[in-house]
């Protein structure tokens, strides 16, 4: 007698598909923000002129979210199963670097933050040549900083005082 027997797969014409939980989470985020925005707009001014577009559109979003949630939880049995891609370390690292770059810009200067971001991205993506990892970000950061400050006259915080 076998120690393990595979579960009965059921009738041959039915495939069980897992709900796309990532879609549900994103949908929850959309609904949450829409609800917050609706109450924010209502608190700002509960008048017809202010809520004429926001109210109906928010209600439409809630209704559509309910439909989509039903579609997510009860996926079509004839639809091809979608294979969600798992985020790689490269992707997560790139997201983290971009977040740090945005936060660091005003604190350590746009030029230094750009240099560190480009250098960090190169290392993350597998570049190991010191010449490339150091000089390319340096040249890029200086060129972009010079262009924004001297050509476009944008007031951005810099470490080098360009």
């Amino acid at each position, binding site marked *: 007698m076998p120690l393990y027997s595979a579960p009965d797969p059921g009738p041959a014409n039915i495939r069980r598909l897992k709900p796309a939980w990532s879609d549900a989470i994103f949908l929850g985020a*959309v609904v949450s923000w*829409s609800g917050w*925005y609706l109450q*924010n*707009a209502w608190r*700002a*001014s509960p008048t017809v*002129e*202010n809520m004429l*577009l*926001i109210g109906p*559109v*928010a209600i*439409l*979003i809630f209704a*559509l*979210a309910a*439909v*989509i949630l039903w*579609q997510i939880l009860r996926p079509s049995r004839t639809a091809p199963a979608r294979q969600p*891609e798992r985020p*790689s370390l*490269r*992707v997560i*690292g*790139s*997201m983290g670097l*971009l977040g740090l770059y945005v936060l660091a810009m005003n604190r350590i200067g746009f030029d230094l933050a750009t240099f560190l971001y480009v250098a960090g991205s190169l290392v*993350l*993506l*597998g570049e190991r040549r010191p010449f490339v990892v150091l000089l390319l970000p340096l040249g890029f950061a200086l060129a972009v900083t010079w262009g924004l400050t001297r*050509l*476009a006259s944008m007031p951005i915080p810099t470490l080098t005082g360009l």
Partner: protein
Amino acid sequence: MIDSVALASAVHLLLHSWTSWLVVVPGLLIGLLFHAIPGLTTSMAIALMLPIIPGMEFLPALVFMTAMYTGSLFGVAIPAVLLNIPGSPAAVATTFDGFPMAQAGRHSEALGHALAASVFGQAVSYLILLVLVDPVARVAIKLGPPEMAVVALWGLTLIASLRGRSFARGLLAGALGLLLGTIGFSARGTIRGTMGIDVLLDGIPVVPALIGLFAAAELFNLCRSDFVVADLKSRSVSLRRILTGFR
């Protein structure tokens, strides 16, 4: 009706001086280069050229700025095709077919197609504008709030049906975009959804939204692989294949 006298004098002005046409190629290249970088706009390009433009005569300055604008209309297609990052909102549709072609190693043909569409589309649209600007203007003046609302609703349903996978999801995206578009000052001075951030008082700026939605998302996607085009032999850009795509 077209003012034929004004048109004739304008044509005479353009054909009278060949030196005015010398700025066409530099203008095209500058516009193309600027818009090949996502986030840079025509207004930035003209702002950077401001030290030069006042020193030019009227006609060359006008031709130069027009050439910059015209070059930009193709320039936005370059990152759209090669990186799946549209250089402007107008190039979003170019990514639908252009980037898959680039991934298949047919980036040169895709650039050629985009160039042909830009050239012929602009030429035909300029001619149509020249001929029909008067009657179109008469109709446009009569458009009011109900007509604009219908156009907005039509655009919304168009967005919803664009991707085809799920009408509800497309409609949700359009509705969310509508809500995001109301952030900031309303017509009556009500501040909505700014979270105390001053930059949002005029609404979400287009360029940061473009960068965040398209460029950043595609940046993370591109990190998965070492190259956009997997096949080493297909990674070169061929002028011959661009011209093939143009034809």
